[in-house]
């Protein structure tokens, strides 16, 4: 076990933290949905039609290039709707659940990779490079598992895990048969896990220490040509359960957090649940326009109040959309309420504790002016700003030299938050990764 101290990054201390670790049971949702966009890299081909009945764990669609790589239903029920967007892109597959749930059982004697691909759990794993769902036919160099989420207001993964801890060893054993390399676990504290066959590293420091990409970069960076799988400890437990019992556990615990939540709490529910079942009656703020984020404020996706819980299915944050419309000369503000991590505003006087943030950009998009802002937020041996510029210029050689294979959009989320020039860094990184993938294919 090694302890790695990370200095770069920032812990955003928002209001709306969970005070008690009790997990309450959320009512069953009326609808459940799976959004193929959550499984980046999979181009979905439907296996079901509206009106079909599916069991929990049964495939809804598969990847265009690999029939065996499936996205599966989280509940049993009837396919109610297939929502399509522009150019008939599949936006969501909506399921009306049965009252009596049935689950598909898998043959545990299958090789683990096949089992993962068919059960839909492989779709919850990502690979570096490119931050996409891995190709089951390529064995990874190593597998990295993060055991904590350091994002603002994020749930404790150990709490979300709960009793499923007992499946971790089985999950590790299954993964060990997939890679010739090692399985690395990233923890935030020195726990006696009792697990064997893994290398454990403890990461101390602010967010993004919990990002698996940061952990890889500080343990064994991804080189050109390497493929590394990444997942969180909850998925690891699900894998363990799958290989021992032959069923996929789609239940999850969600942290309901944020300024506009009456009492932030943990709720147990099922993946893809309609949010009304989780948030109705639990929000404050009356008619103010709310931004409901499935995920954390940095990497989460804004969803409608009747939208669905999105991957990684464990966090909801609710903040105001615009807490101060038409703020007069906000750039000149002397109010400590205007939060900034820089000492240009007075918010540092308050210690930047219990911060309230809304979704405004707080400025216009500009060219990159201030130096070193991205590096401050990126605990990796990478010159973030130069990489971003290489991506914008689409200079393939430079991107490769500067380490594009090592990064995922989420690694730049904090830099995007802190950016004075308000550039969409995650979007830029994603477009760079997509272009690289196309070029290298």
């Amino acid at each position, binding site marked *: 076990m090694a302890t790695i101290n990370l200095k770069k990054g920032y812990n955003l201390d928002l209001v709306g933290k969970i005070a008690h670790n009790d997990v309450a049971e959320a009512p069953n949702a009326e609808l459940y949905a799976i959004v193929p966009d959550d499984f980046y890299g999979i181009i979905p081909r439907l296996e079901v039609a509206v009106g079909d009945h599916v069991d929990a764990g049964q495939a809804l669609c598969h990847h265009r290039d690999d029939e065996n790589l499936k996205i599966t239903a989280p509940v049993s029920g009837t396919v109610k709707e297939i929502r399509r967007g522009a150019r008939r892109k599949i936006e969501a597959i909506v399921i009306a659940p049965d009252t009596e749930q049935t689950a598909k059982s898998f043959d545990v004697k299958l090789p683990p990779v096949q089992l993962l691909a068919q059960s839909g759990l492989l779709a919850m794993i990502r690979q570096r490079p490119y931050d996409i769902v891995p190709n089951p036919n390529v064995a990874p160099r190593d597998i990295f598992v993060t055991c904590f989420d350091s994002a603002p207001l994020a749930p404790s993964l150990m709490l979300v895990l709960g009793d499923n801890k007992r499946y971790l060893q089985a999950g590790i054993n299954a993964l060990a048969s997939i890679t010739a390399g090692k399985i690395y676990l990233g923890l935030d504290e020195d726990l006696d896990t009792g697990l064997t066959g893994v290398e454990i590293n403890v990461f101390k420091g602010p967010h993004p220490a919990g990002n698996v990409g940061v952990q890889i970069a500080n343990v064994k*960076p991804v*080189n*050109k*040509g390497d493929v590394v799988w990444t997942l969180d400890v909850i998925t690891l437990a699900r894998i363990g359960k799958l290989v021992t019992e032959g069923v996929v556990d789609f239940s999850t615990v969600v942290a309901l957090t944020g300024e506009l939540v009456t009492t932030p709490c943990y709720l147990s529910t099922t993946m893809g649940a309609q949010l009304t079942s989780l948030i109705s009656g639990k929000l404050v703020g009356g008619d103010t326009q709310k*931004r409901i*984020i499935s995920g954390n*404020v*940095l*990497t989460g996706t*804004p969803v409608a109040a009747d939208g669905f819980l999105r991957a990684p299915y464990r966090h909801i944050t609710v*903040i105001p959309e615009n807490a*101060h419309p*038409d*703020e*007069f*000369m*906000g*750039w*000149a503000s002397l109010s400590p309420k*205007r*939060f*900034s*991590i*820089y*000492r*240009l*505003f007075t918010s540092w006087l308050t210690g930047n504790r219990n911060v309230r943030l*809304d*979704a*405004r*950009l*707080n*400025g*216009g998009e*500009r*060219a*990159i*002016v*201030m*130096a*070193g802002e991205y*590096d401050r937020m990126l605990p990796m*041996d*990478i*010159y973030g*700003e*130069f990489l971003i510029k290489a991506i914008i210029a689409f200079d393939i050689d430079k991107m490769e*030299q*500067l*380490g594009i294979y090592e990064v995922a959009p989420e690694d730049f989320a904090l830099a*995007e*938050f*802190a*950016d*004075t*020039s*308000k550039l*969409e860094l*995650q*979007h830029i990184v994603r477009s760079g990764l997509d272009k690289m993938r196309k070029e290298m294919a």
Partner: protein
Amino acid sequence: MKALRKLMDKAKPLFSPGGSLEKLQSVYDGFESFLFTPNTTSQSGVNVHDGNDLKRTMITVIVALLPCLFFGMYNIGLQHFIAIGTPDVSAWSMFVYGLLALLPVIVVSYAVGLGIEFIGAQIHHKEIQEGFLVTGLLIPLIVPINTPLWMTAVATAFAVIFAKEVFGGTGMNIFNVALITRAFLFFAYPSKMSGDEAFVKLDSALGYGGGTVADGFSGATPLGQVATNVGDTLSASLDTMQAFLGTIPGSPGETSMVAILIGAAILLFTGVASWRVMCSVFVGGFAMAALAHALPSSTYPASLLDPCAQLCYGGFAFAAVFMATDPVTGARTKTGQYIYGFLIGVIAILIRVYNSGYPEGAMLAILLMNAFAPLIDYCVVQRNVKRRLARLNANSQKGGHENE
């Protein structure tokens, strides 16, 4: 504020495409975002953003410049009344004289620069950007007070167009725009830029003050006096304390070390300027000045100055604090910033001491290092690239053995 908001909303259609004032849309947008924080919320990526933006950053630099500006005004008056032989007028009169003398320069600088920026923004259908806010105030502070206004206007126009807009505007320029203005004046109108008459205003400022020069008065700057020194010892009566306080002739913003240090404290505390650049400029300057002082020569009289005096005189400190720290034109990597700053300090003193043509070298040193900043960054980044490549090679060799 609601009334103002209503007024702005009412005027909006006029400036929108198809409106009668559509040619001024970028002006309207710039004005609107100046008055009201834009209501745009994030549409992709992170859901929350830091409260800081480029407006705040630039305004902070302006605040840091204010001590230099106000002291500069006072000192213009002080030097004026000393020159005309009535040094016992009140400090207030001196300030008013300086204010009246400097105000037209500030107005010309902003009018010309912002005018061009607005036109550029309108041509490219972009929002007007903040970069010139600082440049527009730097220019009056580094241009000698006796420079004719039309020269300042021409030089500002040249700098904004050819040093900034052609490169793509704020954030894209290679050379510091304010220094290009200064350099343009310096090389196009050398007679107005140096010598004894450049730095002390004698005639009236907008009808206030004015007089004839008193007997025995020389308006030469300390560095100008040093440059014409003959012999092994400095004959000019120089007082480093005076230079520290700033009551000496010079460009309006550059004379007072005290005012500059207050500005530096603001910039460093807020983190707007890089302490790496700022400190290493002083270290580099001190090192070079100490070296020159250790090997004094009557051929190069500036080598007779002791290192601390070197740093207090001329535009060195102002350049170190406000010019070298421009993040756009400087080095952007941490290691690069140390090298960049150090070399600016060294070259500034090198030019000052060993090139008798130029009594001051800070401007040329920064412009030169502006050109080299990308190279410095390239070398620093290349080390990271090599490290990555070495890792790859080591890995593939190891992998090869495993396969055997």
